[in-house]
């Protein structure tokens, strides 16, 4: 459950937008320990408006490790509902096996 990417940061693209007042954070690339801090800063901005819901669009995500789980789980504790949109099979399975599906709403 640990991942370290010494030196350089794994490639990730973060885009944020809102859908009817709900922030949507799209992640594409690889999410691991090397760049969760970077993504977290976007998350803070997205939640600054005090929204009750948050959507992660993971359709472009190719890889996620336990740091990504921590990121999603932490987000789930900050708002009432976190929706995970179109996670790839690997990520979806990871969320199931770690019990995160209990607190995240998966939408395919």
């Amino acid at each position: 459950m640990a991942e370290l990417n010494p030196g350089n940061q794994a490639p990730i693209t973060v885009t944020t937008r809102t859908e009817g007042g709900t922030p949507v954070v799209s992640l594409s690339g690889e999410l691991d320990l090397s760049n969760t801090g970077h993504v977290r800063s976007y998350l803070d901005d997205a939640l600054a408006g005090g929204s009750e819901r948050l959507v992660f669009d993971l359709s472009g995500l190719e890889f996620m490790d336990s740091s990504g789980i921590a990121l999603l789980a932490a987000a789930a504790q900050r708002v009432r509902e976190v929706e995970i949109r179109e996670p790839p099979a690997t990520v979806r399975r990871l969320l199931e096996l770690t019990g995160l599906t209990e607190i995240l709403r998966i939408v395919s």
Partner: protein
Amino acid sequence: MVSMRQSAGQVSPAGRVSPASVASPASRASPAGRSPGRGRRAASGAAVAVLVTGLVITAILAVVTLRGHQRTEGKLLALQSRLIADAGEAEDQLYVQDHLGAAASLAAATNGNVATFRKTVSTSVTAKGPFIAGSLWRLSGSSARLVAAVGARPLLAPASARAAAVIRQAAASTTFVVSEIAAPHELRLGLAAAASGPDGTFVVYAEEPLPASRRISEPASSPVAPLNLAVYLGRVQSSAALLESDSAAPLPLRGTTFTSRIRFGNTFLTITTSPRSSLSGATGVVLPWAIAIGGLLLTLLAALLTERLTRGRASAERLAGEIRQLYVEQRSVAETLQGALLPQELPDIPGMQIAVRYLPGATGVDIGGDWYDVVPVDEARFVFIIGDVSGRGVRAAAVMASLQFAGRAHALEGHPPATILDRLRRSLDLERDGHFATVLCGLVDVSAHTVLLANAGHLPPLLRSDGEARLVTIKSGTPIGIRGSSSRARAELTTGAGDVLIAYTDGLVERRGEILDAGLERLEKVASRDFRSLDDMLSSIVTELSGDEPADDIALIGLQWLS
């Protein structure tokens, strides 16, 4: 949840922490790239090589240029000297022939007419020269008789035997005869030319004064001006034979010299020249020095630069070595710490065989957060726990330690697994602590052959029964540290004699870019093979699934019912 990125990791034969992962004094003292002070004082070989090469090239260039310059100088000198010699030869020969030869011929034609002689030599024998004394001689048989004399008194006394000898010599010679006539404070050149007529042979003798110091000065416009010039009578460059010189330098001339010899009557004039200054201009003189000095400076600069670069590289290598060393030390410290946190000895549970494996991941220095524990509850029951704290580093290890101790305490209190996990939830909060943990906890009743499982986000255990390994179907509650419920994440198993239950952390089955089920299937497949023992089984699983390069920590615990 992890990629396979780097190498290392080692399986110890009896489980526990791999001995190779524990720091040894030898490994700490290893001189990996550490050689402080080396190359600090002495110049590097590269710099010396540059210096030597540069100096050699500079020297060669300077010498070649100097040689070239000297050759040019020599050629120019030879050219100028030849011109001077050729001109001198023609001039001197003609001059003497014109004046003395002509006077002798006239005397022969006029049978030694004195008036004609005086008239003929009136322009050449004057107080100003070129001749200051002149005389006409008639030769009768072997005796010479003075016919007339003009100008100053000759140094060669007319009555002397030497005078007679000179006159006879001139009469016998086909060209004019030259002799040096020296008096205490005076030096003259005696020249005698003969001509024969119907009435006998006549000889005209004249004396040309030479400067007493034998020094002459040439006007700046003279073609001789850029040269030191020394003219000797005869073939030898001796001070006695020196006729005249314009050189301020001591004679004979030294350095680049050119010597030419021209006919002068019955003898020779030896003309030696050397350049007063560079004939080819100042550049030729300066160039070799400019090359030598410039080359020297450039060489020194290049050597200095090389030295600096070499030292920079040496210090960079030294730094890299030190960093590598620090990394090795830090990593071994981390591994020692992790090893110390894991149980050093597993309790002996009657009726059960228990084995463990722990492999530190190769990625980075940071200590991981995998752990396992076995806690006897009473004579028939024990609790096993396996967990994995997210993230790395000392904080993750601290979380792992606190969860391990708390879990152990709750187990000893006799709580069922679900309660143990629920209580662990109180001790960790992702938002507060920055870490979460997946934990699988099981209560084993050895004699009853039952296992009560509770799961907080951990991967399902594997049960091998009757030679077939299957993942246990168990729901997963949220991990410890993440608020949620784990109440439904329970399962109860019944086992038989020889059955094996294996719990593990994700490092065993996870590969970057691969769905977890693929790793889980690999595990089922490998665990279904035939094994000699539980140890053999765990070793095979670790070897087959982790490969040579486990990127993440791997913890593995195997429980086998002996009866």
